[in-house]
């Protein structure tokens, strides 16, 4: 791996809760490194589909096409992505992106 390639990798923590962790090996925290300049959440979703969710047959529990399905909240460092730039939010090294399936039970 060359220096220039490493410069464009972003290290992230991806976190899945509320049941969405069942799609990714029942593991809530995933340390990942994704390549690309100016990495956005949109690119993370595409990366997710091609990597962590590759062999998942219930991908519809998290994504609808390339978008997050209704009922799933996305946070960056514990802040609702609506307060940031939603899908266009640019991520930096060390950021934590959380996907929360909201619960309806009682």
């Amino acid at each position, binding site marked *: 791996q060359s220096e220039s390639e490493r410069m464009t990798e972003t290290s992230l923590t991806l976190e899945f809760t509320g*049941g969405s962790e069942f799609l990714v090996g029942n593991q809530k925290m995933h340390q990942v490194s994704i390549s690309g300049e100016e990495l956005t959440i949109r690119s993370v979703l595409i990366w997710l589909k091609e990597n962590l969710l590759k062999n998942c047959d219930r991908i519809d529990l998290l994504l609808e096409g390339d978008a997050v399905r209704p009922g799933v909240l996305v946070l960056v460092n514990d802040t609702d992505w609506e307060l940031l730039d939603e899908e266009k939010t640019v991520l930096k090294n060390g950021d934590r992106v959380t996907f929360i399936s909201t619960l309806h039970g009682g």
Partner: protein
Amino acid sequence: TMHAPHSLSKEQVGRYSRQLLVADFGVTGQERLSSSSVLIVGAGGLGCPCATYLAAAGVGTIGIVDFDTVSLDNLHRQVGHKEKNVGKKKTESLRDSLHELNSSIHINCHSVVLDRHSALEIFKGYDVIVDCSDNPSTRYLINDASILLNKPLVSGSALRWEGQLTVYNYGERCPCYRCVFPVPPSPHLVTNCAEGGVLGPIVGTMGSLQALEVIKIISQSGATYAGRLLLFDGQSGKMTTVNLRERSPKCAVCGPHPTVTELIDYDVFCGSGVHDKTPDLKVL
């Protein structure tokens, strides 16, 4: 402050003495609680502890909405009910438990299916609404009715080892349920407690926390979860508080140009009925 003029009876001062002593609650907090009314929607896993702690604390009037009856498989988590009440209405079962604890408060049973026709008439009699329901359709209904009547809404939910809690419509910038979830989830993607299960102490924790939010709202003391969401993962013991978006200018019900100005058919909106059960699990 214990000796200042107040409206509490001698019996109330005795019964509530250990919370009258609490700094930033005190006599004023108790007076506010005693003259307030709270509606608990759902007499299940969340509704039982929430109603119990509000009754114990002396909320003047508690309303309970539920159309269901107690079943044996409720009792591992719905601790306001009793074995002897299996088959009876949950509203009346819970009311009897609350009155055994505190006979001095008023309790109203609304043993009806909450829908577009019944909700506003019931809700309008209460100061604070508590969502202890168990499906998206009812959650949108409760939200819209709370917005149309401008009541604060304390919302809790739980599944498996996890719980979530927030307060909607409490303050100018506080979002509502539709601000955060404008589009309902597909019904086949929603897991309920009959399918995914839930542990009793999870609903116990969340329902107790809902009661505390109600007490903070009514006593006007402390910082509520308005605009914040508590995520509780009981398996790891992790508690996270996240910042939610503000009230959305595009919100269909609480925005400046609402398209929802009266209650709608929420089963159609969510694509499912609230009565859906999971028949194959009922015969376990």
